[in-house]
């Protein structure tokens, strides 16, 4: 059974022929579109490594059926930098050692981008940790991750204020 769908991935609209309705959004991104920055950790919605922004909100792409999201807009880790200029969240993860092995990092960064857009944590590290609890880091880089999210939020907030001014 072939199923036709479209997906706008990192701003580019793609026409896709799915050969199997069982394909998850994660597998479509990684295997269909060769966007392997999004990681498959547990594949069961428990680790957050597969986090992407779907229709403006962070979700676990391993628990999303691709065909169900026909026509949707997806942003993956490959779509957040502008050319050679890293996204402020990426910069902050580097500055604060928010990673060791790096396997969870793209999911952490996409989740942090979603969290900052949601705008509900303020500068409270406890709220940041709670908001990031869907992303596990087996290396235990949580302290650096929390610091990175707080700093990136500040940078992005300052940029917003500049735009308004």
């Amino acid at each position: 059974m072939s199923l036709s769908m479209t997906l706008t991935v990192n701003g580019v609209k793609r026409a896709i022929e799915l050969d199997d309705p069982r394909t998850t959004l994660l597998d479509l991104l990684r295997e269909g579109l060769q966007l392997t920055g999004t990681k498959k950790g547990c594949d069961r919605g428990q680790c957050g490594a597969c986090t992407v922004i779907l229709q403006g909100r962070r979700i676990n792409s391993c628990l999303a059926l691709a065909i169900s999201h026909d026509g949707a807009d997806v942003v993956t880790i490959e779509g957040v930098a502008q050319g050679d200029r890293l996204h402020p969240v990426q910069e902050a993860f580097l500055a604060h050692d928010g990673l060791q092995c790096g396997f969870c990092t793209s999911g952490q960064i996409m989740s942090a981008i979603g969290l900052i857009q949601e705008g509900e944590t303020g500068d409270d590290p406890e709220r940041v940790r709670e908001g990031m609890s869907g992303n596990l880091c087996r290396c235990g880089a949580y302290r650096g991750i929390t610091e990175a999210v707080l700093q990136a939020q500040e940078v992005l907030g300052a940029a917003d204020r500049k735009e308004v001014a």
Partner: protein
Amino acid sequence: MNSFDYVRPATVREAVAAATAPGAAYLAAGTNLLDLMKGGVARPSRLVDIGRIPDLDRIETLPDGALRIGALVRNADLVRDCAFARRFPSVAEALLSGASAQLRNAATVGGNLLQRTRCPYFYDVASACNKRSPGSGCDAIGGENRLHAVLGWSEACIATHPSDFCVPLVALDAVVEVEGEAGRREIPLEAFHRLPEGRPERESVLDPGEMIVAVRLPGEAARFAAHSRYLKVRERTSYAFAVVSATASLRMEGGRIAEARVALGGVAMKPWRAREAEPILADARAEAGLFRLAAEAALSQARPSGDNGFKIELARRVVERALALAAAGTPARMPALPASPLASISGDVFHG
């Protein structure tokens, strides 16, 4: 994962027609169903994707003051609805204590009610499970069962219902609106889930093909808003199912409780309304001794189903503390760790 036919109906009527066939299952976000399908626990031959059906994602206040929440409303959208969170703060707290931000961005109201148990023997297709495979037995009995049911269980099944959301909903008399081939009907949430008895595979009173279209909170439930809490003990701080949880909603008049609602989670195969506790609390002074009496009444029918006797005393203490928290007043702002047992009872209060 087994293969399946995929259909995407445009209306509730079409969806019901497509889902009445044997082997069909509704797909909303899929955050639980896809996981079950990957493990071979659920093997639907047809997925009826209801995600595009219009109007099921609306939150509306009805003329009688009830809040009607469409079945496809995402957990995160419901929590961000100010009218909802202000009028039903314990429901918001329960939602925010469940799953992760990513899952709450996807998971729906209807799916929450219909999520399956997290019993590891249900998930493990090599284990005997009367729920997954009727008549095969129950490996949880005599197995690793410290997290299993202490209320309403049977010799056929000792699993629990994992929802946080349903616990305050059942305390506040929520009603489930469903549609099937015979038309629409309404079911009180308290009567929606079935206890296992001899047929643990039947988890709700839904007929084949019937789907949830909305959940309704009665307007009167908002009178508890100033004193409503949800408290959830987990084995880690965040992103874990309840070992035991409880909600308490009080209508206070001066220092006295005029009316009380209490329910428990993680103790049975349904959200457990503790009706025995409520009359004890009514028209009484809010104090520790009273909370203990109410907690003892709430668990009076409890018995261990294995190595989980500790859950009975734990549940009593969670009820007591939920009552103390509710009496102190709904916090002005959602706590950083919603429903956390680590928080102190004092703090800013809403308008209690």
